[in-house]
């Protein structure tokens, strides 16, 4: 595919596919028709120039290609007379009258179908990347450090479940919309987090996954405007991602927030994120946990220097978050914020209570935070022990190097 068409694919594949699935009622046929339509574009656009509406052109051609495919299949099996074949095709493939360009509605249908709760989270995320974002099976597999065959099988299974279990190709009705939006956001956030802090492997971040997650949240915010949870999540991701360039050194080592060159932070993304946080927090009712997390990220983004960070307000927001969304990870972050306001002794007591409660045994950041507090309190031997415990639990290579450097500094 040429560079230009590559670009069209990135922008249009999901949208064209979404409408083709509605028209054909068949995921696999729609995907084949999508490939056919792009092959036709590769042939025709270079000499005739691209059409005025690329989406409409691709949908129109794709629909005709789907009909061709059904016709060829029936002719090969030759079980029915031609007239019956044509009638069957007409029943299966919905008409597409001129001017029917409800691409946004179809995109929502596809989003809600890919994130249906009857599909496991790993299947949802695979469908999001492959179907909505137009990533190839290889690229989707790479995103999850899985084998291509494993990913291909996961996608086949997911599509089979959509078909055989009768998962509808519909945007849920108002009575179910709220909970289903929550499910979609959880899946998008999972894609982002895998990109922002990979759960394992050689690299800390995979920027492509972060970009895809942000693109989807933007799309969702456009299609379902005025929802605090969607705007909150979009803001959260924009603000976190704005620090991408400052988070890692040229050698791939982690640079902690306090040591980052804030001049490298993406100011355009920050202002977009800040505006969204303000809007999301103004929506009446309980604040969305995403909006609260975004508000915390906003306080970091607003601080010109690390020592200008408003830790008191951050600690307060973590307290709000702990009520909305009780979790030991939130408690851990609250303890760190409290250490910046009230000092390490109070934070250490909170962390010790958290350790005693259990539930974070496989999470290296808890012993790492204890090591930090113990070291600030001058309790070096205990700090070394905690640092070793963190090293035993860490799975990501750059984080292992960071902890190794800290251990060396403590042992000096």
């Amino acid at each position: 595919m040429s560079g230009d068409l590559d670009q069209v694919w990135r922008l249009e594949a999901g949208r064209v596919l979404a409408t083709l699935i509605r028209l054909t009622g068949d995921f696999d046929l729609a995907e084949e028709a999508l490939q056919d339509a792009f092959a036709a574009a590769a042939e025709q656009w270079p000499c005739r120039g691209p059409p005025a509406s690329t989406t409409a052109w691709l949908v129109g051609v794709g629909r005709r290609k789907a009909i061709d495919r059904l016709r060829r299949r029936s002719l090969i099996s030759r079980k029915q007379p031609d007239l019956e074949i044509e009638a069957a095709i007409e029943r299966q493939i919905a008409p597409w009258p001129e001017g029917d360009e409800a691409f946004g509605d179809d995109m929502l249908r596809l989003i809600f179908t890919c994130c249906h709760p009857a599909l496991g989270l790993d299947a949802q995320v695979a469908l999001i990347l492959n179907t909505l974002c137009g990533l190839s099976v290889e690229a989707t597999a790479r995103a999850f450090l899985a084998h291509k065959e494993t990913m291909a099988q996961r996608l086949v299974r997911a599509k089979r479940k959509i078909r055989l279990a009768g998962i509808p190709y519909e945007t849920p009705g108002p009575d179910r919309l709220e909970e289903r939006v929550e499910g979609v956001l959880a899946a998008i956030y999972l894609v982002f987090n895998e990109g922002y802090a990979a759960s394992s492997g050689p690299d800390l971040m995979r920027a492509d996954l972060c970009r895809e997650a942000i693109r989807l949240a933007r799309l969702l915010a456009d299609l379902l405007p005025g929802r605090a949870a969607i705007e909150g999540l979009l803001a959260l991701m924009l603000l976190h991602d704005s620090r991408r360039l400052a988070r890692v050194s040229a050698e791939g080592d982690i640079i902690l927030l306090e040591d980052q060159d804030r001049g490298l932070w993406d100011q355009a993304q920050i202002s977009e994120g800040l505006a969204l946080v303000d809007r999301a927090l103004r929506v009446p009712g309980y604040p969305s946990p995403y909006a609260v997390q975004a508000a915390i990220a906003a306080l970091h983004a607003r601080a010109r220097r690390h020592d200008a960070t408003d830790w008191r307000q951050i600690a307060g927001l973590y307290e709000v978050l702990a009520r909305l969304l009780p979790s030991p990870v939130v408690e851990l972050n609250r303890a760190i914020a409290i250490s910046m306001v009230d000092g390490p002794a109070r934070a250490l007591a909170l962390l010790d209570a958290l350790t005693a409660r259990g539930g974070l045994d496989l999470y290296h950041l808890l012993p790492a935070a204890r090591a930090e507090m113990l070291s600030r309190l001058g309790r070096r031997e205990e700090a070394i022990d905690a640092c070793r415990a963190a090293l035993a639990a860490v799975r990501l290579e750059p984080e292992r190097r960071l902890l190794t450097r800290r251990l060396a500094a403590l042992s000096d």
Partner: protein
Amino acid sequence: MQYLLLIYSNEAEFSALPEAELRAISEDYGAFTQSIIASGAFKAGDRLEWASMATTVRVRDGKTSITDGPFAETREQLGGYYMIEAKDLDEATAIAVRVPGAKYGSIEVRPIFAMP
């Protein structure tokens, strides 16, 4: 008395069987079904879709959870069934949510196998 005959099998082993053997099993089932129809014992019976096509519905504290797969807890035993007609999975789970047992146990929603 009426009885429900529940058929358990190992899906992985079953789906690995060669085509000819599957056909033979299917013929066995056909013959068996015919024999109990003839004897008058037959009330109803269907093959189910694979367990991976199942969706589990639970209601706790008024909140509905819909999850992938057949996840009956090991301390839960099969206690009853309904066969329903629904336009799609969402309609089926909306009915499953209203089964009283959804509040203390779990309701597995499994499609009936559609004969090709």
